[in-house]
């Protein structure tokens, strides 16, 4: 499928009151010469009125095979399929989720439903966070953690209401959960739209471009429910068969706790770089051309999820190195 023909879809998450509606109103009213459709949820904040606003109920559908990773958003399938029949082509679609929504079924919809995957592509997950309240929300609600964990961009809003040390503390908390997310400081969601739309964050090419903002983390935290990230680097080439064996078993057994993964892999005997990225158990992977001349070949692997320290990830990864 020609990716130019796929309409990019941006998923906008964030807790109630963080500023999603402010951002949506800006997207709809700013003079950008683009045609954007916005899918809002019934229980969201009020005050958006536009021809291209579609009301939806968030409906999470399980497939009848009972597979968790095939849980999708039924309303999105219906509405995206409808929007793709419009005579005038849309430049982008923005999907707002409720503050308590799990972003995974939204993201999985783009992997699982063939019609949706043919005509649209998941562009990025943008999470609007309230700089004042995010820390307490992260402590109290696992949904807030998930929204940060899945984010490609975190719009850290209302920074005018926190002092510098408070801002640094909340940023550190975000980075600990998700070293990949780009954090943009804003007041009243004042951000250029090209920093949040058309990012192509789910393409494998982008995995190669984004350098994660790793923290020197000691991985200690208050309780086991915390979402954290773990990363591994190796200059020793990996054995493809061993890696596939380990990784597929890992996703099969622990996929529910692993929220997002990304990696660039150097396999013994292969001249190409292998790139992958995934949401829970669903994976997009492909060779992405030769290693750049003069650059050290190394494998990098990042996990974002829960209970990562109980998965023997380091040992598993070490065992994949070619003897």
């Amino acid at each position, binding site marked *: 499928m020609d990716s130019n023909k796929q309409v990019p879809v941006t998923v906008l998450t964030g807790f109630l009151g963080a500023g999603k509606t402010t951002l949506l109103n800006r997207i709809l009213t700013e003079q950008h010469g683009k045609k954007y459709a916005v899918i809002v949820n019934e229980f969201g904040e009020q005050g958006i009125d536009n021809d291209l606003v579609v009301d939806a109920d968030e409906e999470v559908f399980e*497939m*009848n095979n009972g597979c968790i990773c095939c849980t999708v958003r039924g309303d999105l399938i219906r509405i995206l399929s409808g929007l793709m029949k419009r005579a005038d082509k849309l430049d982008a679609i923005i999907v707002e989720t409720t503050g308590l929504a799990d972003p995974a079924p939204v993201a999985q919809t783009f992997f699982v439903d063939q019609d949706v995957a043919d005509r649209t592509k998941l562009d990025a997950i943008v999470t609007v966070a309230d700089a004042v309240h995010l820390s307490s929300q992260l402590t109290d609600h696992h949904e807030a953690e998930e929204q940060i964990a899945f984010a490609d961009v975190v719009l850290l809003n209302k920074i005018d209401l926190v002092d510098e040390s408070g801002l640094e503390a909340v940023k550190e908390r975000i980075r600990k959960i998700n070293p990949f997310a780009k954090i943009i400081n804003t007041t009243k969601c004042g951000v250029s739209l090209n920093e949040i739309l058309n990012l192509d964050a789910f393409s494998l090419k982008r995995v190669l471009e984004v350098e994660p903002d790793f923290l020197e983390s000691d991985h200690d935290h208050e309780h086991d429910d915390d979402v954290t990230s773990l990363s591994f680097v190796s200059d020793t080439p990996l054995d493809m068969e061993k890696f596939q064996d380990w990784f597929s078993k890992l996703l099969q057994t622990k996929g529910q706790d692993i929220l997002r993964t990304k990696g660039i892999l150097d396999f013994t005997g292969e001249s190409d770089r292998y790139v992958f990225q995934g949401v829970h158990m669903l994976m997009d992977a492909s060779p992405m051309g030769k290693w750049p001349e003069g650059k050290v070949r190394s494998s990098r692997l990042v996990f974002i999820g829960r209970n990562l320290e109980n998965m023997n990830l380091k040992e598993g990864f070490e065992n994949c190195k070619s003897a």
Partner: protein
Amino acid sequence: MKADLNKFPELNKTKFENRGKELRLGIPVINSVVIGNSIAVGFGDGTIRIFKAGQSSEPIKAHNGIVLCISKDGDDIITGGDDGRFLRISLNGEISEIANFGSRWVDHVTANNGSLVCTSGNNVYLWMAGRKEPRIFEHESTIGGVAFDSKGRRLAVSRYGGVTLWKKDYSNKWKSSNLLWKGSHNKVIFSPDDRYLVTSMQENQLHFWRLKDKTDSTMSGYGAKVKSFAFVHDTKFLVTSGSYDAVCWPFDGIGPEGRQPICLPFVGNKLVTFVEPFPNENAIFTGLSDGSVFLSEIEKSSNTIIIRSFTESEVTTISVTEDGSSILIGDMAGNILWTSIWDEENK
């Protein structure tokens, strides 16, 4: 001297294309409905066009965005749109609004025997003959499809988790019962003899219930979602899209369980996107993902005639007039073929 174009069939138009009328509108064709010997077509820009023999078809602006669904009520067209409107349109093009749901889409419309139905979100709105105010039937999830039985006494509503079957008793009260099957159900139809109810699912499969004893079963093995299916020749076969063949399940006698479907193949390995029975014949028109359309008998070694050559856009509708004389074909790119089926001398 003429070049022998028959050696290069891809350069050659079919005789149906040569004698019919072709439109290249560039607007996605959503669906169409047959009213006698006229055919009404709904488009992705909110217009409809009415095709009648020997007349040109002008666009009629009905909805602001997309005509999401189109059906008929007697001799009138009924449509639902993403502008939240449920409309009645006469064959002369006069539009009247039946209901307006604002920013909520009208996803499905149908009618039978004076009863008029549309769905929006989780609700079915049912207007009984002569009533101004609709009855509202609420469901727990968004409605995937609606269908009346042949007499208009039962209304099937497909949804997440199965089908809600609404039945009108003799005091005109509607009562519901459930036919459950895990997963999300989309389009729903009754068999012409009202013995079976069939749904297509989010998974690449169909599900059916035999209404007499509520036994049910799955028809699977498809490569894609089954978006188009219909009963042929009363209830002899259920013909289905979603595969590289037109898959025809036998529904006569004991039904399809334990029996193999007849699969009608086509050259080129393209997905079947639309199937439409030939009225009163044991034959179907099959539209493919490359825009080509074929007529086949439902036989193990079937004769196949090409009706339209490829357009490189998936067939989204095929309608045949009630007298079986003319066919309309539409695709996602807005190409339309409106042609007579029979040669002049065979009429």
